[in-house]
């Protein structure tokens, strides 16, 4: 009789104990894991447009401007200053991120004596054209990121940088 059962008494006990134990262990571990991975599951902070500069201060030569905003670090709010390279392309405002698309160093306009009309990254000699296009044969593989922008009452407001192309 006993032999006909598919699950033996010992097996049933093993399953029951492992199941209950596993359930209890999961109840303990799950909150801690969710607690630890919380940063990757947080919704991205929405982007506010930030007032940076008056349109009349822009020229057709790229100039560095400071973009100031508050960054939320959880229990600490930091005042951040970011540099943006801006110039006028005809009537159109162009705002480029100074972050080199190679490995994230900071580029400046015209600091390479051999290429004064280009953005230059001193880390690995990456170069970009005026419109942010990466110069072939230098380390960067894509153009400088461009800020979303908006002109309101003669002031330039910037959002966040996104890849060109």
């Amino acid at each position, binding site marked *: 009789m006993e032999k006909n059962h598919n699950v033996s008494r010992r097996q049933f006990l093993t399953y029951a104990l492992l199941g209950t134990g596993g359930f209890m262990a999961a109840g*303990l*571990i799950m*909150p*801690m894991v*969710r*607690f*630890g991975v*919380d940063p990757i*599951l947080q919704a991205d902070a929405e982007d506010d447009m930030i007032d940076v500069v008056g349109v009349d201060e822009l020229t057709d030569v790229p100039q560095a401007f400071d973009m100031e905003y508050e960054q939320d670090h*959880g*229990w*600490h709010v930091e005042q951040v200053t970011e540099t943006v390279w801006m110039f006028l392309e005809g009537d159109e405002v162009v705002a480029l991120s100074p972050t080199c698309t190679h490995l994230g160093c900071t580029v400046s306009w015209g600091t390479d004596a051999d290429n004064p009309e280009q953005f230059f990254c001193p880390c690995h000699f990456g170069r970009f054209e005026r419109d942010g296009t990466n110069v072939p044969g230098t380390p960067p593989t894509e153009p400088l990121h461009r800020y979303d922008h908006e002109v309101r009452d003669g002031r330039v407001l910037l959002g966040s940088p996104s890849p060109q192309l």
Partner: protein
Amino acid sequence: MLQRIYDWIDDRIDVTPLWRDVADHEVPEHVNPGYHFSAFVYCFGGLTFFTVVIQILSGMFLTMYYVPDIVNAHASVEYLQTDVAFGMIVRGMHHWGASVVIVMVFLHTLRVFFTGSYKKPREINWVVGVLLFFIILGLGFTGYLLPWDMKAYFATQVGLEIAESVPVVGDLASNLLAGGEFIGAQTLTRFFAIHVFFLPGALLGLIAIHFIMIRRQGISGPL
């Protein structure tokens, strides 16, 4: 699948005897609650260890957010408690678990005392157990300060005054604990270091000795 992974490893480094030695041992009838219900008192040692494991785990996770600095300590605790998912639960585990550990240690000590398990040849294990008790009290005391709120401050103030009341070395002891004349930034980092490095290190070492002695000497005989 799991069986095959296990066999693959076992073929190479022969883990079976290792875990059998740790996990597979006979329990005498007089400590099995299945035979004598009152034998549940023999669970307190295991429960103490279990709650200690929860304390270590939840504490490790809390340090992902906690900052031992007078400017940010309270703000970081408030953040992890209110803004991080399950923060209230994880901090709750550590907070309430601290009391549970002490209760369990106490019950375990009572059981050992009333069953006479501290007698020869187990005197050394009793001594190690008392040291463990002090270390756990120390963990409770140093952990108290870390949230850096009013309760934390005054609990530590009282603790330091008690240390100061010791004849001759009282002032030295209090200064050594506080890292100075008053409770401040130095006290907080000191208590944090003691709470997460020094005492847990000593705790794990002594627990290992405690457990090895249990396996060496076996569980004491029936009353």
